[in-house]
Protein backbone atom coordinates (compact mmCIF):
# COMPACT_ATOMS: atom_id res chain seq x y z
CA UNK A 1 0.00 0.00 0.00
CA UNK A 2 1.54 3.33 -1.01
CA UNK A 3 1.73 6.38 1.27
CA UNK A 4 -1.21 8.08 -0.43
CA UNK A 5 -3.52 5.09 0.02
CA UNK A 6 -2.44 4.73 3.64
CA UNK A 7 -3.24 8.43 4.10
CA UNK A 8 -6.70 8.07 2.57
CA UNK A 9 -7.54 5.04 4.74
CA UNK A 10 -6.20 6.70 7.89
CA UNK A 11 -8.32 9.78 7.30
CA UNK A 12 -11.37 7.59 6.68
CA UNK A 13 -10.72 5.76 9.95
CA UNK A 14 -10.21 8.92 12.01
CA UNK A 15 -13.25 10.71 10.62
CA UNK A 16 -15.33 7.60 11.30
CA UNK A 17 -15.00 8.26 15.04
CA UNK A 18 -16.59 11.68 14.55
CA UNK A 19 -19.33 10.20 12.36
CA UNK A 20 -20.03 7.51 14.96
CA UNK A 21 -20.16 10.13 17.70
CA UNK A 22 -22.86 12.02 15.79
CA UNK A 23 -24.61 8.73 14.97
CA UNK A 24 -24.93 7.70 18.64
CA UNK A 25 -26.85 10.93 19.28
CA UNK A 26 -28.89 10.72 16.10
CA UNK A 27 -30.39 7.33 16.94
CA UNK A 28 -31.79 8.86 20.12
CA UNK A 29 -33.25 11.70 18.06
CA UNK A 30 -30.70 14.40 18.84
CA UNK A 31 -28.97 16.43 16.13
CA UNK A 32 -25.62 17.79 17.30
CA UNK A 33 -23.48 20.26 15.39
CA UNK A 34 -20.96 20.24 18.21
CA UNK A 35 -19.22 16.86 18.31
CA UNK A 36 -16.05 18.45 16.92
CA UNK A 37 -15.63 20.18 20.29
CA UNK A 38 -15.25 16.85 22.10
CA UNK A 39 -13.01 15.60 19.30
CA UNK A 40 -10.87 18.65 20.10
CA UNK A 41 -11.04 18.10 23.86
CA UNK A 42 -9.83 14.53 23.28
CA UNK A 43 -7.04 15.72 20.99
CA UNK A 44 -5.77 18.28 23.49
CA UNK A 45 -6.17 15.96 26.49
CA UNK A 46 -4.28 13.10 24.85
CA UNK A 47 -1.60 15.51 23.64
CA UNK A 48 -1.13 16.87 27.15
CA UNK A 49 -0.89 13.30 28.44
CA UNK A 50 1.79 12.01 26.09
CA UNK A 51 3.70 15.14 25.06
CA UNK A 52 3.73 17.04 28.35
CA UNK A 53 3.66 14.26 30.93
CA UNK A 54 5.11 11.30 29.07
CA UNK A 55 2.09 9.05 29.60
CA UNK A 56 1.70 5.98 27.41
CA UNK A 57 -0.73 6.45 24.53
CA UNK A 58 -3.33 4.08 25.96
CA UNK A 59 -3.47 5.95 29.27
CA UNK A 60 -3.62 9.33 27.52
CA UNK A 61 -6.36 8.04 25.21
CA UNK A 62 -8.40 6.83 28.19
CA UNK A 63 -8.00 10.30 29.72
CA UNK A 64 -9.07 11.83 26.39
CA UNK A 65 -12.22 9.70 26.36
CA UNK A 66 -13.03 10.69 29.95
CA UNK A 67 -12.40 14.35 29.11
CA UNK A 68 -14.61 14.13 26.01
CA UNK A 69 -17.39 12.51 28.04
CA UNK A 70 -17.10 15.08 30.83
CA UNK A 71 -17.11 18.02 28.39
CA UNK A 72 -20.15 16.53 26.63
CA UNK A 73 -21.94 16.21 29.96
CA UNK A 74 -21.18 19.84 30.77
CA UNK A 75 -22.82 20.81 27.48
CA UNK A 76 -25.58 18.20 27.73
CA UNK A 77 -26.83 19.05 31.21
CA UNK A 78 -28.22 22.47 30.30
CA UNK A 79 -28.95 21.83 26.59
CA UNK A 80 -30.80 18.51 26.70
CA UNK A 81 -33.82 20.33 28.05
CA UNK A 82 -34.07 21.91 24.60
CA UNK A 83 -35.67 20.07 21.69
CA UNK A 84 -34.90 19.64 17.99
CA UNK A 85 -33.43 22.64 16.26
CA UNK A 86 -32.90 24.48 19.55
CA UNK A 87 -30.70 21.67 20.84
CA UNK A 88 -28.78 21.64 17.55
CA UNK A 89 -28.19 25.41 17.78
CA UNK A 90 -27.09 25.12 21.41
CA UNK A 91 -24.53 22.42 20.55
CA UNK A 92 -23.14 24.60 17.76
CA UNK A 93 -22.79 27.55 20.13
CA UNK A 94 -21.16 25.35 22.79
CA UNK A 95 -18.69 23.97 20.24
CA UNK A 96 -17.67 27.49 19.26
CA UNK A 97 -17.15 28.28 22.94
CA UNK A 98 -14.81 25.30 23.22
CA UNK A 99 -12.91 26.43 20.13
CA UNK A 100 -12.43 29.87 21.65
CA UNK A 101 -11.30 28.24 24.90
CA UNK A 102 -8.66 26.35 22.90
CA UNK A 103 -7.54 29.73 21.51
CA UNK A 104 -7.19 31.08 25.04
CA UNK A 105 -5.41 28.01 26.38
CA UNK A 106 -1.71 28.64 27.04
CA UNK A 107 -0.12 25.90 29.08
CA UNK A 108 3.40 24.80 28.25
CA UNK A 109 6.17 23.08 30.12
CA UNK A 110 9.76 22.25 29.38
CA UNK A 111 10.18 18.74 28.02
CA UNK A 112 13.57 17.60 26.77
CA UNK A 113 14.78 21.19 26.31
CA UNK A 114 11.80 22.51 24.39
CA UNK A 115 8.51 24.15 25.35
CA UNK A 116 5.65 21.75 24.77
CA UNK A 117 1.92 22.26 25.23
CA UNK A 118 -1.07 24.26 23.99
CA UNK A 119 -0.08 27.76 22.88
CA UNK A 120 -3.37 29.46 22.01
CA UNK A 121 -3.91 30.18 18.33
CA UNK A 122 -0.40 28.90 17.62
CA UNK A 123 -1.71 25.44 18.38
CA UNK A 124 -0.19 22.50 20.19
CA UNK A 125 2.88 21.11 18.51
CA UNK A 126 5.10 18.19 19.36
CA UNK A 127 2.50 15.48 20.00
CA UNK A 128 5.08 13.02 18.81
CA UNK A 129 4.48 9.89 20.86
CA UNK A 130 3.55 7.70 17.90
CA UNK A 131 6.33 9.14 15.78
CA UNK A 132 8.96 8.70 18.50
CA UNK A 133 7.93 5.10 19.03
CA UNK A 134 8.90 4.48 15.42
CA UNK A 135 5.35 3.51 14.49
CA UNK A 136 5.10 4.06 10.75
CA UNK A 137 2.01 5.27 8.93
CA UNK A 138 0.95 1.72 8.04
CA UNK A 139 1.33 0.62 11.67
CA UNK A 140 -0.74 3.52 12.91
CA UNK A 141 -3.37 2.64 10.32
CA UNK A 142 -3.66 -0.80 11.96
CA UNK A 143 -4.03 0.86 15.38
CA UNK A 144 -6.78 3.17 14.10
CA UNK A 145 -8.74 0.35 12.46
CA UNK A 146 -8.19 -1.97 15.41
CA UNK A 147 -9.72 0.57 17.79
CA UNK A 148 -12.45 1.39 15.27
CA UNK A 149 -13.34 -2.31 14.92
CA UNK A 150 -13.64 -2.64 18.70
CA UNK A 151 -15.84 0.44 18.84
CA UNK A 152 -18.11 -0.71 16.01
CA UNK A 153 -18.38 -4.18 17.59
CA UNK A 154 -19.35 -2.56 20.91
CA UNK A 155 -21.97 -0.38 19.21
CA UNK A 156 -23.38 -3.34 17.27
CA UNK A 157 -23.58 -5.30 20.53
CA UNK A 158 -25.42 -2.44 22.24
CA UNK A 159 -27.78 -2.01 19.28
CA UNK A 160 -28.80 -5.65 19.48
CA UNK A 161 -29.40 -5.44 23.20
CA UNK A 162 -32.39 -4.19 25.18
CA UNK A 163 -30.54 -0.89 25.64
CA UNK A 164 -30.27 -0.48 21.86
CA UNK A 165 -34.01 -1.01 21.45
CA UNK A 166 -34.64 1.51 24.22
CA UNK A 167 -32.40 4.09 22.55
CA UNK A 168 -34.24 3.73 19.24
CA UNK A 169 -37.60 3.87 20.99
CA UNK A 170 -36.57 7.16 22.62
CA UNK A 171 -35.40 8.44 19.23
CA UNK A 172 -38.68 7.46 17.56
CA UNK A 173 -41.09 8.81 20.13
CA UNK A 174 -39.72 10.21 23.39
CA UNK A 175 -43.18 10.90 24.86
CA UNK A 176 -44.28 7.32 24.36
CA UNK A 177 -40.97 6.03 25.73
CA UNK A 178 -41.38 8.22 28.80
CA UNK A 179 -44.91 6.88 29.30
CA UNK A 180 -43.38 3.40 29.51
CA UNK A 181 -41.26 4.49 32.44
CA UNK A 182 -38.01 5.35 30.68
CA UNK A 183 -36.09 8.21 32.29
CA UNK A 184 -35.44 10.13 29.07
CA UNK A 185 -33.13 12.82 30.48
CA UNK A 186 -30.95 10.33 32.33
CA UNK A 187 -30.72 8.05 29.29
CA UNK A 188 -29.86 10.93 26.99
CA UNK A 189 -27.21 12.22 29.39
CA UNK A 190 -25.60 8.78 29.21
CA UNK A 191 -25.77 8.86 25.41
CA UNK A 192 -24.29 12.38 25.31
CA UNK A 193 -21.40 11.24 27.51
CA UNK A 194 -20.83 8.14 25.38
CA UNK A 195 -20.87 10.22 22.18
CA UNK A 196 -18.40 12.63 23.79
CA UNK A 197 -16.12 9.74 24.73
CA UNK A 198 -16.23 8.38 21.16
CA UNK A 199 -15.35 11.82 19.79
CA UNK A 200 -12.57 12.16 22.39
CA UNK A 201 -11.17 8.80 21.35
CA UNK A 202 -11.07 9.91 17.72
CA UNK A 203 -9.48 13.21 18.71
CA UNK A 204 -6.73 11.44 20.67
CA UNK A 205 -5.81 9.34 17.65
CA UNK A 206 -6.06 12.36 15.34
CA UNK A 207 -3.65 14.41 17.46
CA UNK A 208 -1.11 11.60 17.42
CA UNK A 209 -1.54 11.14 13.69
CA UNK A 210 -0.85 14.77 12.79
CA UNK A 211 1.55 15.49 15.73
CA UNK A 212 -0.01 18.94 16.17
CA UNK A 213 -3.45 20.43 16.68
CA UNK A 214 -4.77 23.97 16.60
CA UNK A 215 -8.12 25.56 17.52
CA UNK A 216 -9.23 26.08 13.94
CA UNK A 217 -9.08 22.29 13.40
CA UNK A 218 -12.24 22.04 15.48
CA UNK A 219 -14.55 24.56 13.90
CA UNK A 220 -18.03 24.04 12.49
CA UNK A 221 -16.74 22.54 9.22
CA UNK A 222 -15.55 19.40 11.00
CA UNK A 223 -18.79 19.10 12.96
CA UNK A 224 -20.96 19.41 9.87
CA UNK A 225 -18.93 16.71 8.14
CA UNK A 226 -19.28 14.36 11.11
CA UNK A 227 -23.03 14.85 11.15
CA UNK A 228 -23.29 14.50 7.37
CA UNK A 229 -21.37 11.20 7.42
CA UNK A 230 -23.87 9.71 9.85
CA UNK A 231 -26.87 11.08 7.96
CA UNK A 232 -25.83 9.97 4.47
CA UNK A 233 -24.34 6.65 5.57
CA UNK A 234 -27.49 5.72 7.39
CA UNK A 235 -28.95 5.41 10.86
CA UNK A 236 -29.83 1.73 10.66
CA UNK A 237 -26.45 0.41 11.78
CA UNK A 238 -23.14 1.63 13.20
CA UNK A 239 -21.62 0.79 9.82
CA UNK A 240 -23.65 3.65 8.30
CA UNK A 241 -21.34 6.51 9.36
CA UNK A 242 -18.37 4.53 8.06
CA UNK A 243 -20.07 4.27 4.68
CA UNK A 244 -20.66 8.04 4.77
CA UNK A 245 -16.95 8.70 5.32
CA UNK A 246 -15.98 6.23 2.61
CA UNK A 247 -18.27 7.99 0.14
CA UNK A 248 -16.75 11.39 0.86
CA UNK A 249 -13.07 10.70 1.55
CA UNK A 250 -12.68 7.38 -0.26
CA UNK A 251 -14.75 8.01 -3.37
CA UNK A 252 -14.92 11.77 -3.88
CA UNK A 253 -11.56 12.80 -2.38
CA UNK A 254 -9.58 9.63 -3.07
CA UNK A 255 -10.61 9.42 -6.71
CA UNK A 256 -9.96 13.15 -7.31
CA UNK A 257 -12.95 13.13 -9.66
CA UNK A 258 -14.03 16.64 -8.74
CA UNK A 259 -10.76 18.12 -7.41
CA UNK A 260 -11.42 21.44 -5.63
CA UNK A 261 -15.16 21.22 -6.37
CA UNK A 262 -15.54 18.15 -4.20
CA UNK A 263 -17.07 20.04 -1.29
CA UNK A 264 -19.81 21.36 -3.57
CA UNK A 265 -20.49 17.86 -4.88
CA UNK A 266 -20.52 16.48 -1.35
CA UNK A 267 -22.95 19.17 -0.21
CA UNK A 268 -25.22 18.35 -3.15
CA UNK A 269 -25.01 14.64 -2.34
CA UNK A 270 -26.02 15.28 1.28
CA UNK A 271 -28.97 17.45 0.19
CA UNK A 272 -30.10 14.86 -2.38
CA UNK A 273 -29.85 11.95 0.04
CA UNK A 274 -31.73 13.82 2.75
CA UNK A 275 -34.59 14.21 0.28
CA UNK A 276 -34.69 10.68 -1.12
CA UNK A 277 -33.41 8.77 1.93
CA UNK A 278 -33.95 10.84 5.07
CA UNK A 279 -32.47 8.11 7.31
CA UNK A 280 -29.44 7.56 5.02
CA UNK A 281 -28.34 4.75 2.73
CA UNK A 282 -28.15 2.02 5.38
CA UNK A 283 -31.41 2.96 7.05
CA UNK A 284 -33.39 0.82 9.50
CA UNK A 285 -35.48 -0.78 6.73
CA UNK A 286 -32.43 -2.03 4.81
CA UNK A 287 -30.70 -3.31 7.94
CA UNK A 288 -33.88 -5.04 9.12
CA UNK A 289 -34.12 -6.71 5.68
CA UNK A 290 -30.54 -8.00 5.98
CA UNK A 291 -31.17 -9.45 9.41
CA UNK A 292 -34.43 -11.01 8.30
CA UNK A 293 -32.74 -12.71 5.34
CA UNK A 294 -29.73 -13.78 7.44
CA UNK A 295 -31.91 -15.49 10.08
CA UNK A 296 -34.55 -16.97 7.73
CA UNK A 297 -34.37 -20.81 7.66
CA UNK A 298 -33.22 -22.21 4.31
Amino acid sequence: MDAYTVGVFTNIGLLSFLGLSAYVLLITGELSFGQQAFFGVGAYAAGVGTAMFGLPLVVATAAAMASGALAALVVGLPTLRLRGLYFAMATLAAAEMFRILFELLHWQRDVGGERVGPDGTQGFRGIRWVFEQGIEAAGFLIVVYGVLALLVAALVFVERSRLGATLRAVGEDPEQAASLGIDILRLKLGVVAAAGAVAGLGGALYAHHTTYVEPRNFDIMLGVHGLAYALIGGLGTALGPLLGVVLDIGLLEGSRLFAGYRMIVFGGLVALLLVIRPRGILDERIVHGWRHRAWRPR
Partner: protein
Amino acid sequence: MEAALTRTPIATVGIAALLIALAVAHPAHAQRAQAELACAGTITVHVYDCTVRLSRGGRPLEGARIVVGADMPSMPLAHVVRPVTATPGAIAGEYTFRLALEMSGRWAVKLRVEAPVRDQLIVHYDFSETAASPARR
Protein backbone atom coordinates in the same frame (compact mmCIF):
# COMPACT_ATOMS: atom_id res chain seq x y z
CA MET B 1 -19.60 -7.88 8.49
CA GLU B 2 -21.30 -7.12 11.81
CA ALA B 3 -21.25 -10.79 12.66
CA ALA B 4 -17.59 -11.05 11.69
CA LEU B 5 -16.74 -8.13 13.95
CA THR B 6 -18.48 -9.58 16.95
CA ARG B 7 -17.42 -13.20 16.46
CA THR B 8 -13.70 -12.98 15.75
CA PRO B 9 -11.85 -13.57 19.04
CA ILE B 10 -8.46 -13.85 17.29
CA ALA B 11 -8.79 -10.34 15.88
CA THR B 12 -9.88 -9.03 19.28
CA VAL B 13 -6.91 -10.68 21.00
CA GLY B 14 -4.54 -9.28 18.35
CA ILE B 15 -5.86 -5.77 18.79
CA ALA B 16 -5.66 -6.11 22.57
CA ALA B 17 -2.03 -7.25 22.29
CA LEU B 18 -1.25 -4.22 20.12
CA LEU B 19 -2.88 -1.89 22.66
CA ILE B 20 -0.91 -3.47 25.53
CA ALA B 21 2.31 -3.00 23.53
CA LEU B 22 1.41 0.67 23.07
CA ALA B 23 0.65 0.99 26.78
CA VAL B 24 4.06 -0.12 27.99
CA ALA B 25 6.18 1.85 25.54
CA HIS B 26 7.61 5.21 26.58
CA PRO B 27 8.57 8.17 24.39
CA ALA B 28 12.16 9.17 23.71
CA HIS B 29 13.29 12.70 23.03
CA ALA B 30 15.80 13.61 20.34
CA GLN B 31 17.30 16.85 19.10
CA ARG B 32 14.80 18.45 16.74
CA ALA B 33 15.46 19.63 13.21
CA GLN B 34 14.45 23.12 12.07
CA ALA B 35 12.93 23.98 8.72
CA GLU B 36 12.62 27.15 6.68
CA LEU B 37 10.16 26.83 3.85
CA ALA B 38 9.81 29.01 0.77
CA CYS B 39 7.19 28.31 -1.89
CA ALA B 40 6.31 30.08 -5.12
CA GLY B 41 3.45 29.58 -7.53
CA THR B 42 3.96 28.05 -10.96
CA ILE B 43 2.06 28.66 -14.21
CA THR B 44 -0.25 25.83 -13.18
CA VAL B 45 -2.97 26.81 -10.73
CA HIS B 46 -2.51 25.32 -7.25
CA VAL B 47 0.89 23.85 -8.10
CA TYR B 48 3.88 25.30 -6.24
CA ASP B 49 7.63 24.94 -6.34
CA CYS B 50 9.00 24.83 -2.82
CA THR B 51 12.43 24.92 -1.21
CA VAL B 52 13.06 23.84 2.34
CA ARG B 53 16.23 24.52 4.30
CA LEU B 54 16.80 21.98 7.01
CA SER B 55 19.15 22.41 9.93
CA ARG B 56 19.87 20.64 13.17
CA GLY B 57 21.87 22.13 16.00
CA GLY B 58 22.59 25.17 13.80
CA ARG B 59 24.15 23.12 11.02
CA PRO B 60 22.64 22.28 7.63
CA LEU B 61 21.10 18.84 7.62
CA GLU B 62 22.57 17.07 4.62
CA GLY B 63 21.62 13.79 3.02
CA ALA B 64 18.10 13.88 4.39
CA ARG B 65 15.19 11.98 2.92
CA ILE B 66 12.09 14.15 3.23
CA VAL B 67 8.55 13.12 2.40
CA VAL B 68 6.21 16.10 2.13
CA GLY B 69 2.47 16.12 2.71
CA ALA B 70 -0.09 18.78 3.53
CA ASP B 71 -3.33 19.21 5.42
CA MET B 72 -5.75 22.11 5.62
CA PRO B 73 -6.17 23.16 9.27
CA SER B 74 -9.68 24.50 8.70
CA MET B 75 -10.75 21.19 7.14
CA PRO B 76 -8.69 18.55 8.93
CA LEU B 77 -8.55 15.11 7.33
CA ALA B 78 -10.77 16.27 4.46
CA HIS B 79 -7.94 16.60 1.95
CA VAL B 80 -5.38 13.95 1.19
CA VAL B 81 -2.45 15.45 -0.68
CA ARG B 82 -0.34 12.91 -2.53
CA PRO B 83 3.01 12.80 -0.66
CA VAL B 84 6.10 13.85 -2.62
CA THR B 85 9.77 13.19 -1.91
CA ALA B 86 12.03 16.25 -1.83
CA THR B 87 15.26 16.22 -3.83
CA PRO B 88 18.56 17.82 -2.67
CA GLY B 89 18.98 21.41 -3.82
CA ALA B 90 21.96 23.54 -4.79
CA ILE B 91 23.34 24.16 -1.30
CA ALA B 92 23.88 22.02 1.76
CA GLY B 93 20.70 21.37 3.74
CA GLU B 94 18.45 22.62 0.94
CA TYR B 95 15.80 20.45 -0.67
CA THR B 96 13.21 21.15 -3.34
CA PHE B 97 9.85 19.68 -4.15
CA ARG B 98 6.72 20.44 -6.15
CA LEU B 99 3.48 20.57 -4.22
CA ALA B 100 0.08 20.11 -5.87
CA LEU B 101 -2.83 21.27 -3.71
CA GLU B 102 -6.58 21.15 -4.22
CA MET B 103 -7.51 24.69 -3.32
CA SER B 104 -6.28 28.05 -2.08
CA GLY B 105 -6.03 28.81 1.61
CA ARG B 106 -3.88 28.10 4.63
CA TRP B 107 -2.18 24.74 4.59
CA ALA B 108 -0.03 22.95 7.14
CA VAL B 109 2.89 21.54 5.18
CA LYS B 110 4.19 18.38 6.82
CA LEU B 111 7.85 17.54 6.40
CA ARG B 112 8.59 14.00 7.44
CA VAL B 113 12.35 13.58 7.72
CA GLU B 114 13.25 9.91 7.53
CA ALA B 115 17.05 10.00 7.32
CA PRO B 116 19.69 10.61 8.67
CA VAL B 117 17.47 11.60 11.63
CA ARG B 118 13.77 10.94 12.10
CA ASP B 119 11.63 13.99 12.63
CA GLN B 120 8.33 15.52 11.62
CA LEU B 121 7.96 19.26 11.12
CA ILE B 122 4.87 21.33 10.45
CA VAL B 123 5.10 24.65 8.60
CA HIS B 124 2.02 26.80 7.96
CA TYR B 125 1.82 28.51 4.60
CA ASP B 126 -0.79 30.58 2.76
CA PHE B 127 -1.39 29.53 -0.83
CA SER B 128 -3.39 31.51 -3.38
CA GLU B 129 -4.06 30.20 -6.89
CA THR B 130 -0.63 31.13 -8.24
CA ALA B 131 1.36 32.50 -5.30
CA ALA B 132 2.37 31.51 -1.78
CA SER B 133 3.57 33.24 1.37
CA PRO B 134 4.43 32.22 4.94
CA ALA B 135 1.37 32.22 7.17
CA ARG B 136 1.08 35.09 9.66
CA ARG B 137 -0.09 33.52 12.88
